[in-house]
């Protein structure tokens, strides 16, 4: 009988007392629709507990992704550093002419297929769009060749008519020169170009990726520039050893240069992708850890508030009985 009265009193008290701790909890994280149903005596810590469980799972997942990215980075970094000597002879011979002005520009944007890798794909797309703007002019046309899903998704929105070719799923098999030369062959066959501008992220260190643009000129433009003088001016002083004509050799040279530069660019971009993913996942797990700390504090406060509520109910019930 006394217990029944106590319980009835308790029920009347609970809705009076509960709003205050509930308001404190509601203001921090819980959205408005997840209110504790009325008539329940103690404040539920279930919601906070569910939240903590999901945040902990997310932290575990991001930590695992960081480890996977670190091991992939180690494997591909060796390959990328070994391939760095490949483009240097071409630049030593033909120089680097990013400011050359041609009629048919083709911008080759290299990006990743998978996401969660920080801002590198957006950086590449920004640079590509800026190059497009830079090379815009009368009688000039600029086209895109896109490697990777992420750049395709971003560029297809506003430059759909300028996209010539899209190549995805590069990293299904480990990257090697044969695969890249087949892709380069594809591009050379299907795209008319005067100059290729290859945009990629060069891997400098695990936390630093430099957007870079490499220029590969077509043989006609090479001839034009060497006649005009300047950086390519002393190309004529080179004897051409070969049974074929100079233009055939220059053609082979341009194609070989394109495939070598592409190979290095693809490897460097893959390294940058793994490095960026490592740092993104690292900061994500750190954020999850901080969130978990805050949730734990809230959980403890909620738990202690509900205990205090129960005590108050009991004590006031008891004192009501006495006095």
């Amino acid at each position, binding site marked *: 009988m006394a217990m029944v009265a106590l319980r009835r009193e308790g029920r009347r008290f609970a809705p009076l007392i509960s709003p205050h701790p509930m308001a404190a909890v509601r203001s921090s994280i819980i959205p408005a629709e997840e209110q504790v149903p009325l008539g329940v005596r103690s404040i539920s810590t279930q919601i906070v507990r569910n939240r903590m469980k999901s945040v902990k799972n997310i932290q575990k997942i991001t930590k695992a992704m960081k480890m996977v990215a670190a091991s992939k980075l180690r494997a591909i970094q060796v390959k990328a550093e070994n391939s760095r000597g490949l483009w240097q002879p071409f630049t030593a011979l033909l120089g680097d002419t990013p400011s050359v002005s041609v009629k048919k520009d083709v911008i080759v944007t290299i990006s990743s297929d998978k996401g969660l890798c920080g801002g590198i794909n957006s950086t590449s797309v920004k640079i590509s769009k800026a190059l497009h703007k830079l090379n815009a002019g009368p009688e000039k046309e600029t086209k895109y060749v896109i490697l990777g899903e992420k750049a395709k998704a971003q560029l297809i929105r506003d430059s759909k008519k300028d996209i010539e070719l899209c190549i995805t799923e590069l990293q299904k098999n480990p990257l090697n020169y044969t695969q890249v030369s087949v892709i380069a062959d594809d591009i050379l066959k299907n795209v008319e170009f005067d100059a290729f501008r290859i945009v990629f992220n060069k891997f400098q260190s695990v936390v630093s990726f430099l957007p870079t643009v490499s220029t590969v000129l077509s043989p006609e433009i090479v001839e034009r520039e060497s006649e005009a003088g300047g950086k390519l001016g002393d190309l004529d002083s080179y004897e051409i050893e070969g049974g*074929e004509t100079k233009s055939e050799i220059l053609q082979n040279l341009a194609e070989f240069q394109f495939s070598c530069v592409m190979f290095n660019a693809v490897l460097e971009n893959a390294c940058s992708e793994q490095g960026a993913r490592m740092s993104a996942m690292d900061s994500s797990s750190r954020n999850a850890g901080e969130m978990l700390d805050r949730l734990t504090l809230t959980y403890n406060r909620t738990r202690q508030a509900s205990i205090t509520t129960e005590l108050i109910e009991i004590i006031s019930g008891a004192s009501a009985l006495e006095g």
Partner: protein
Amino acid sequence: MLRRATTLLTRSTIPLRARPFSTDVAETAPADSTFSDAWKKVVPHIDPPRTPLTFMKPRPVTPSSIPTKLTVNFVLPYASELSAKEVDMVIIPASTGHMGVLPGHVATIAELKPGVMSVHEGADVTKYFVSSGFAFIHANSIADIIAVEAVPLDRVDASLVQKGLAEFTQKLNSASTDLEKAEAQIGVDVHSALNSALTG
């Protein structure tokens, strides 16, 4: 322990950061300034991207007298076999035949055919079988050889070479389209070059 960790971190990052600040940037600044100026006019709020010249060491100018040694850079897609090695002579399999390169050789661009490349350094001779590629010989006695595949000759299996040669000769005879003929011809060329490299 924390102090040492920070010194370790700075020690590891300083050499990395030092690379872009090497003398390359100052030397090639006039060359790239047209690009970065044009960039800044059109897109002022984004930093201009780097260009390959900033990542390369500048090549030495042509000396007035012929140097005594030839500097060879032999690169493959997956490794830099020789980088800045000083040698006496290199014999490369150009498409017009084997040519010997000595210091002071005239500047040349040569396309390579499958064959043996030998590097002569004093009394040692290292032979590689290269599949194909290009060789640039600059006026400052630097030779850049870029090949797609290269193997030291002692790693080549003679029996497999014979088998491959027979297979591709047979394919060449039975080829119908131009593409098949070209592919079979390439196979025959490479295998016969390998054969003569092993025997000769």
